[in-house]
């Protein structure tokens, strides 16, 4: 069971944490919501919860709760640029269907 980040994603996480001035790492997760059932969560973490699992990738911490891990196992977080737009992208092998915009998905 593991979660990873590309180097580009790790770099951007570092930059964001530096800019924010605090934070342990970033949280990946899922919530039941959205047009296809589940939605990704991507947040800063100031204080990990006791049951959280922590993975390290390119020196940055990826924090995830065990329930979300079931849906995200094997996911690689990437940071991409598409024209002027830039942001994080979940490469999740568990996904069977996404809604058009990719903000929500089902497994």
């Amino acid at each position: 069971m593991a979660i990873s980040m590309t180097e580009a994603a790790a770099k951007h996480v570092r930059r964001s944490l530096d800019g924010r001035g605090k934070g342990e790492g970033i949280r990946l997760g899922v919530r039941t919501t959205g047009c296809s059932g589940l939605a990704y969560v991507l947040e800063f973490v100031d204080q990990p919860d006791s049951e959280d699992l922590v993975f390290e990738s390119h020196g940055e911490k990826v924090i995830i709760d065990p329930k979300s891990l079931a849906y995200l196992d094997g996911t690689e977080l990437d940071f991409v640029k598409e024209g002027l737009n830039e942001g994080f992208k979940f490469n999740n092998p568990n996904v069977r269907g996404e809604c058009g915009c990719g903000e929500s998905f089902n497994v």
Partner: protein
Amino acid sequence: MALLQIAEPGQSPQPHQRRLAVGIDLGTTNSLVAALRSGRSEPLPDAQGRVILPSAVRYHADHIDVGQVARDAASSDPLNTVLSVKRFMGRGLADVKQLGEQLPYRFVGGESHMPFIDTVQGPKSPVEVSADILKVLRQRAEETLGGELVGAVITVPAYFDDAQRQATKDAARLAGLNVLRLLNEPTAAAVAYGLDQNAEGLVAIYDLGGGTFDISILRLTGGVFEVLATGGDSALGGDDFDHAIASWMVEQAGLSSDLDPGAQRQLLQAACAAKEALTDADSVTVAYGNWSAELTRAAFDALIEPMIARSLKACRRAVRDSGVELEEVGAVVMVGGSTRVPRVREAVGALFGRTPLTEIDPDQVVAIGAAIQADTLAGNRRDGGELLLLDVIPLSLGLETMGGLMEKVIPRNTTIPVARAQEFTTYKDGQSAMMIHVLQGERELISDCRSLARFELRGIPAMVAGAAKIRVTFQVDADGLLSVSARELGSGVESSIQVKPSYGLTDGEIARMLKDSFEHAGFDKVARQLREHQVDAERLLEAVQGALDADGDRLLDAEERLAIEQQMQDLRDLMSGTDGVAIEQQTKRLSQVTDAFAARRLDSTVKAALAGRNLNEIEE
């Protein structure tokens, strides 16, 4: 697939509910757009990585250039290239012509008072030109953020009046932007530094741009910024530093002072580059043609010292206008590219006795603050701890009352949005209409305030003077735009106006009006008292004259009548003068000599009413 941004803990947005909002600094020389991404407010670059968009628009027959390309064409195609359009926003044709004879544009009058600039695409109003700049920023933001914008916060100078704010809002609408709020530039800069998170304090915003200097003193109380005073110099900026270096070069190199425009531009470019290099270097080599010399930072500092001194003088004046002391200012924020000059920072620091805040890029700080505010207004913060930033009315709003006095309905520094109502009444018997004259300013006499609008309330039913109740409601929305309505409470007749003021305020006039009000406070007080006494006297004279006409012959003997008429004449004589105290005393005297007459009239009315009726009838 949509690309995700990192959210604050517990604040991941619902899918499809990220509300994209941006902050826009629509500047005289340069414009920027910024947004909150992954918890940081940052300016959004274009495809070439440039965040600054020069506020320049060039009109071709079939397309429009905006930005650097347009600015570069300013000298080759001056008629169709519009620079610094912000200076024309909300102005009348007459004001614009006054701004300077040297403007290359062909101005034509429109159906409104607005000046139109004649281009190959036909006449363009300043609002349209601004909209063309905003459209480019909007497009950049939508491409960068990957979706349609919910809205934008656009910044305006603190001294912008209603007309200029309305014009800015119109430009945004024309560009397809929903304006969440117009925000004062100094307030935006303070927000960028998070100063709105403090409980209270005084903040000075020192904004030295390319061509203009603004100083604003803000007071923060409970998350609300009040503009205590603004000041500045509309002809002082970093360009003057360039000119100072260029003049020095001309002198040192022994050049003739009447250079052709091309040579002058070259000289200024070299000067500007030297200025920028001296931000980090202690000394720089400047060259022109075959000539070259060393310019030290100390020599540069000496060249610009007079200009810095001018800005500091404006700072001291603004602090004085605010009624506070220099030492009370708790934070000094630097805005504008020219505040990179080390000597400027040093001098401002020395004046206020504290190190100015400079960590945020001074060219970007206003847009960055606006973006933070936009994000809050769009409803993206869900922790509830975020105070909604409030703005205030820069100058009091009110209306004209009898005697040419300004009656303030909403005082200066009231937080907006706000609605205030006040009741007024009629002055004459049977008065059927009332003129509502809406004014803005701090002075007591309407001639010293700015007229915003006039409208009439008609159809007031005939009543004796003072019996009608007319409720006038002033409403100011979150952008500082005013609407006024009047309603006669008995009959329900109503009339209202959305204040789209007669465009036409000259530069810095708001600031000047404010200053005048402080300087003339004593004079104004006397003037107001005089007018009040005059109005009282007029009212009494009218009442006595009416009584004399009705009952004078019946109730007064010749001697009594003469005495009253003598006092009336004395009062009339005094009224044309300026001695308020004498008018007041004479009014009292007239009132006294008519006391007996008034009592007799009352008796006779009562007698007439009672005549021929018995007690039971009266008690019923």
